[in-house]
């Protein structure tokens, strides 16, 4: 348990980790798609409802500012730094609203933040277990106390979510953790979902979110692209999207349904299963090398005696 969580422990009990409790109860429930954990916590962002007010961004930074070493990003003309103006997700910004505009009639907002994958690449590649996935809540969390800053999580993430604090002497990785240590713990909901004035962000369990999403698709078929982004992408994500514009135009890449981490781990595990292959290789090579060396020593010994017999003058040629 980290210092922060210890400090907030009483609070947690008081305000109730309601979400956590419900999750614990739900872990026994059977999952629908094989290994997919639909009891995990997530968010559904409905781009057709979003009005682009960015209240979620402000709430995120207000709540998580200290937790994650976030700073406000100044616009070039704003010398006093009174207006936070992030251009993209960064080492100071965990969530961001962007606008996609095709014409005056056709446009859409889109919100970025960690997708909380079912089979996360960042967790799979981190060499020192600094990225972890909570078994119950499905939250992908980052621990700066073990992180070595190798940025392999950034290489691995298909959504380019983990951000590094390039400008800092003591940098860290920054990404959304569903307010795990802040708002979720205190109020049982993420800051962005709590703040959204139009209900574009729904917080809840994945199975409930999927149900809501599919109901909306059925009730308003003309309004949406007929799929839920994140339902199957890379083996499923806990952050889901609905939109009226094709997802790839909103910066959400077209992705296969297989998780890259399954592929890489399968290869790595085949090679290193039980550490048998390396040990076998070492012992075989040892056997060959020792045999060869013995042979070589015999040859040079014979040569020495032959040289000695044929006269000592030869040796110092």
């Amino acid at each position, binding site marked *: 348990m980290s210092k922060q969580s210890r400090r907030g422990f009483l609070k947690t009990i008081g305000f109730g980790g309601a979400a956590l409790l419900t999750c614990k109860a739900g872990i026994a429930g059977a999952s629908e798609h094989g290994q997919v954990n639909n009891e995990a916590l997530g968010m559904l962002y409905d781009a057709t409802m979003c009005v682009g007010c960015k209240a979620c961004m402000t709430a995120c930074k207000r709540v998580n500012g200290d937790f994650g070493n976030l700073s406000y990003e100044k616009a070039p003309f704003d010398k006093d730094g009174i207006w936070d103006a992030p251009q993209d*997700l*960064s080492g100071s910004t965990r969530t961001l609203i962007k606008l996609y505009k095709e014409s005056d009639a056709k446009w859409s907002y889109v919100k970025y933040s960690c997708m909380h994958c079912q089979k996360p*690449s960042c967790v*799979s*590649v*981190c*060499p*020192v*277990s600094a990225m972890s996935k909570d078994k119950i809540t499905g939250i992908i969390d980052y621990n*700066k*106390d*073990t*992180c*070595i*800053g*190798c*940025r*392999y999580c*950034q*290489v*691995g993430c*298909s959504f*380019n979510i*983990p*951000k*590094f*604090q*390039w*400008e*800092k*002497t003591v*940098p*860290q990785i920054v990404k959304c953790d569903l307010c795990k240590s802040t708002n979720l713990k205190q109020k049982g909901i993420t800051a962005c979902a709590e703040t959204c004035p139009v209900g574009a962000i729904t917080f809840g369990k994945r199975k409930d979110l999927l149900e809501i999403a599919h109901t909306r698709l059925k009730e308003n078929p003309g309004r949406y692209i007929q799929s839920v982004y994140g339902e199957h992408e890379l083996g499923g994500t806990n952050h889901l999207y609905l939109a009226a514009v094709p997802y790839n135009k909103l*910066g959400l*890449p077209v*992705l*296969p349904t297989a998780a*890259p*981490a399954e*592929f*890489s*781990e399968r*290869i*790595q*595990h085949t*090679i*290193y299963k039980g550490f048998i292959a*390396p040990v076998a*290789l*070492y012992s075989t*090579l*040892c056997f*060959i*090398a*020792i045999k*060869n*060396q013995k*042979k*070589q020593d015999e*040859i040079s010994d014979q040569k020495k005696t032959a040289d000695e017999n044929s006269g000592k003058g030869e040796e110092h040629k």
Partner: protein
Amino acid sequence: MAGHHEQFIKQEGKIFTKSFFVLLTLTLIGFFFIGVRYVKGIGAVSNMSDGYPWGIWIAYDVATGTAIACGGYAVAILIYIRNHWKYHPLIRSALLTSLFGYGLAGFSVMIDLGRYWNSYGFFMPSRWQINSAMFEVALCVMTYTLVLAIEFLPAVLWSMENSKGNTLRKVTTWLHPRLVPDEAKMASGLEWVKSSAAWLRPRLEKFLVFFIVLGITLPTMHQSSLGSLLLIAATKLNPLWHTGFLPLLFLINCVYIGYGIVILESIISSYGFGRSFEVKELSGLSKIIPWLTLIWLTVRIGDLAWRGQLAAAVKFDFYSNFFLLEFLLIACGSFILFSETMRRSPRWLFISAAMMVLGGALYRFNVYLIGFNPGQGWHYFPSFAELMITAGIVSLELLGYQVLVKVIPVLPNPNHHANGH
């Protein structure tokens, strides 16, 4: 390496040459920027971004640098496993290059790591994450660097046994007369060092073969894992390079780069130090290379065909051009060596080895940087400071090599014939 000390000699000549000072200047410039990096953060010196979190420090210093440092690995396989003892005279210079290459790759990693003070986590089993290819690479590279140092130790011990301590005496006198203890005390100290070196060396040499074999096993593991590192980037690495065969391709790739570097190093040091070319050893060595690259190219093409990417490979767009350049450099460079006459000409040997090393290195760059596309809007080209840090580290490597071959018997002894004479 084990025994046969008569096969190696020290290079005669002054240490403080013109090239020494040129390299020293480059090294100091590099270290200035390394200082800036530690004070002001990585962003202050590098053009890396959240889209391209790995720049040339990883793509060159680690991924390519360790392949170039695979000479020791490749030659050790040849001698100890394939039983070709006539190549033993090449081993020490190959080992020294490997030691520098791996040591400085580790050093580069410490510059590149954002939270380097946490790297002790690699020694804490509670933090181990065995799914990560990087975990494997990190532990393996650390162990291998240590193994390389042990493999090279007999040469150092031998020089300690046979040194007269003149330089040491000169240095201490120059430092400060008061620092110099009385002659007798120093002589006895020197005697003690010599005798302990003489005690340690034969004992070490007895067990050295186990370290040598470890020095063959470890690169087999981590060089393939360097390829596995990019397996995760299924959605970012161009399909011309992303394949399940990455580990195998990286493994074979490092072996022929290793042989190529041994040839280059031998020819350059013969030329630079005015020694005669080791044509006989090199032409024998170069006989193996085209067969290795033939296997590599077959896997490469077969894999592309199997995944239906052959058309993309000859589209002559940005990615296809880099693929073709890499392919032609390796193919043309190595197939020259199928010819007996070419193998006997130092010039052609040099050209062929240079093409192969360039092509092999380009393959690694393609996988780590050029074929890597994190999505729209991201671009990467190394900054001046970033380049100078890499240049500084490479200069330090060359500098160290240049000095050490004059202090320790590393280069092959032209007057000694190991076998068959």
